[in-house]
């Protein structure tokens, strides 16, 4: 079952508890030197990852003067005010905009993607292969190639700077990978269950929604997380599609776009703590998703490249 997921997701679980400290039984000098060296290097890289992030979060608690004055030094008083200020200064709106878009786009991506993948994986009809390659090929081209006409397409549909426009575009651009992955997944599901359902008189769509889709849950979870992260972090599409179209058109920036906007507005002059607090707010959901679904995230993201 579930070949692509199983293979990758087995890794972290398998490495684990019964670790023997690596250097204990090593008698050779070369080993000891290498161990010190490699542990040192591993720890150094871990610090390189963690320190800038912690430093940025810490900086959110400082004052502007402190941030400009020296890279080091502790905040004078720990107060969560700055997060409230960041929220009011736009981060709250950006956050909500992103959530509104994703609440629709991720489930819709999963639904439409699995529907197409299921039909392509399980039914024989003329043009099946062609359609499959047609979907997968979309993942190969750089987004930039489509950007200019896409802008005018969305404009013609009168959906520039609207939630529904961005939702539809997100769904469309997430389809290639979703179809590709779910196609592989549906192929591995046992056909006995499918046949039993059909024999019991279930209709095609009932078989899909009540039998096959629940069986595909692990795959849906991995791809769903992948799409969620991808769409949450998307920057290019909203930059092009979510600009206010006229004076009275309200800003509907998503979080990534809003952060950059905030950064460019203030340059290095004014309220940097607010910017850093905004980044912290934007990081928290990703951190939570990552830590709670760590295995699926790694499996989902890496299986995108391992075909």
């Amino acid at each position, binding site marked *: 079952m579930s070949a692509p997921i199983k293979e990758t997701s087995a890794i972290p679980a398998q*490495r684990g508890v019964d670790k023997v400290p*690596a250097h204990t039984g090593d008698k050779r000098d070369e080993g000891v030197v290498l161990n010190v060296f490699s542990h040192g290097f591993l720890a150094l890289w*871990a610090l390189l990852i963690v320190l800038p992030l912690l430093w940025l979060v810490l900086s959110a608690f400082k004052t502007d003067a402190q941030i400009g004055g020296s*890279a080091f030094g502790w905040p004078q008083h720990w107060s969560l005010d700055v997060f409230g200020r960041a929220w009011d200064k736009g981060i709250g709106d950006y956050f909500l905009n992103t959530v509104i878009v994703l609440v629709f786009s991720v489930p819709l991506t999963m639904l439409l993607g699995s529907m197409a993948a299921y039909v392509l994986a399980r039914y024989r009809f003329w043009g099946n292969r062609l359609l499959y390659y047609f979907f997968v090929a979309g993942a190969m081209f750089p987004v930039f190639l489509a950007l200019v006409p896409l802008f*005018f397409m969305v404009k013609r549909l009168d959906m520039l700077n609207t939630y529904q426009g961005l939702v539809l575009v997100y769904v469309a651009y997430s389809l290639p990978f979703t179809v590709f992955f779910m196609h592989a997944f549906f192929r591995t599901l046992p056909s006995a269950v499918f046949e039993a359902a059909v024999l019991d008189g279930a209709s095609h769509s009932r078989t899909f929604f009540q039998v096959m889709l629940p069986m595909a849950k692990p795959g849906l979870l991995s791809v769903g997380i992948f799409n969620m992260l991808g769409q949450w972090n998307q920057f290019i599409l909203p930059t092009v599609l979510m600009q206010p179209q006229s004076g009275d058109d309200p800003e509907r920036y998503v*979080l990534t776009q809003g952060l950059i906007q905030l950064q460019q507005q203030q340059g290095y002059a004014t309220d940097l703590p607010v910017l850093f607090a905004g980044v912290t707010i934007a990081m928290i959901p990703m951190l939570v998703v990552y830590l709670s679904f760590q295995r699926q*995230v790694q499996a989902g993201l*890496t299986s995108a490249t391992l075909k």
Partner: protein
Amino acid sequence: MRKGQYRFVAGFLLVPVALYLIFVIWPYVQTFGYSLTDWKGQSQNFSFVGLDNYKALLKDDIFTGAIWHNILFLVFIPVITILLALFFAFMLNAGGRSRAGGVKGVAGSRFYKVVYFFPQVLSLAILAVLFGAVYRSDNGGMLNGILIKLGLVDAGSPVEWLNEPNIVLWALIAVVVWHGVGFYLVLFSAAMQSIPRDIYEAALIDGAGRAQSFFRITLPLLWDAVQTAWVYLGIAAMDMFILVSTMTSGDYGGGPDHHSEVMATVMMRNFLYYGKSGYACAMGVVMLLLTLIVSVVMLRATRRERIEF
């Protein structure tokens, strides 16, 4: 039954295929057409100009300069990222030696994997703000702060990481590497897990050291994954839009004085800022062609005989 089946298949495919056609395939196709026109975007009136846009591109110093920057990224980003990721993956999976003489990862490898991978889930926009602060050009920047503390940089004249023509590209490369190593580490780890332990243990009995078991066993058996990584990093190096446009100076980045310009930033500036849609489409086509060439060349160059195990 059969008839119902076709209706079902068509019903399930209708919406996804329609969305995909309208928002993905059709714009891709249109780009080629528009790249042959002098379309300015706002008006619907434009005329066919043949290959004029492409000819103008070749004379556009900013764009050709940008291509060279992409090539620099193309050379260094994959090499540095893959080497680091391979090294860490090997350490985490086969670097340790257990009491019984077996081969396993070093202590804490699970923890390291979780930490190293984390940057991958962060948006590039967040990275832009984060490294904007790290590279800040005074004592308040993390990097300058540390270097000044260590006495390596004079406090009076800190390094302007993102405003120094000779440094800016390297500063950007560092960000990409920081972001990518964990991802490729996990990718390589997955591949390493599938290498049977017995092979390592046999090599260990034969007296192979860590370096030997890496070069003689791990690397050859990992070649497919390395190749995949190479192609993906190559494609990423051809893009670079988000980091360059948000971290460097100028409209849509590229500063100082076009020293960090990449193809995508030039294209976006021409499209969104100057409104030269047809010209921007031609750049998009050039980007596609170069990216395809890069993928094919990289696949070719790294092709080896596949080792079955």
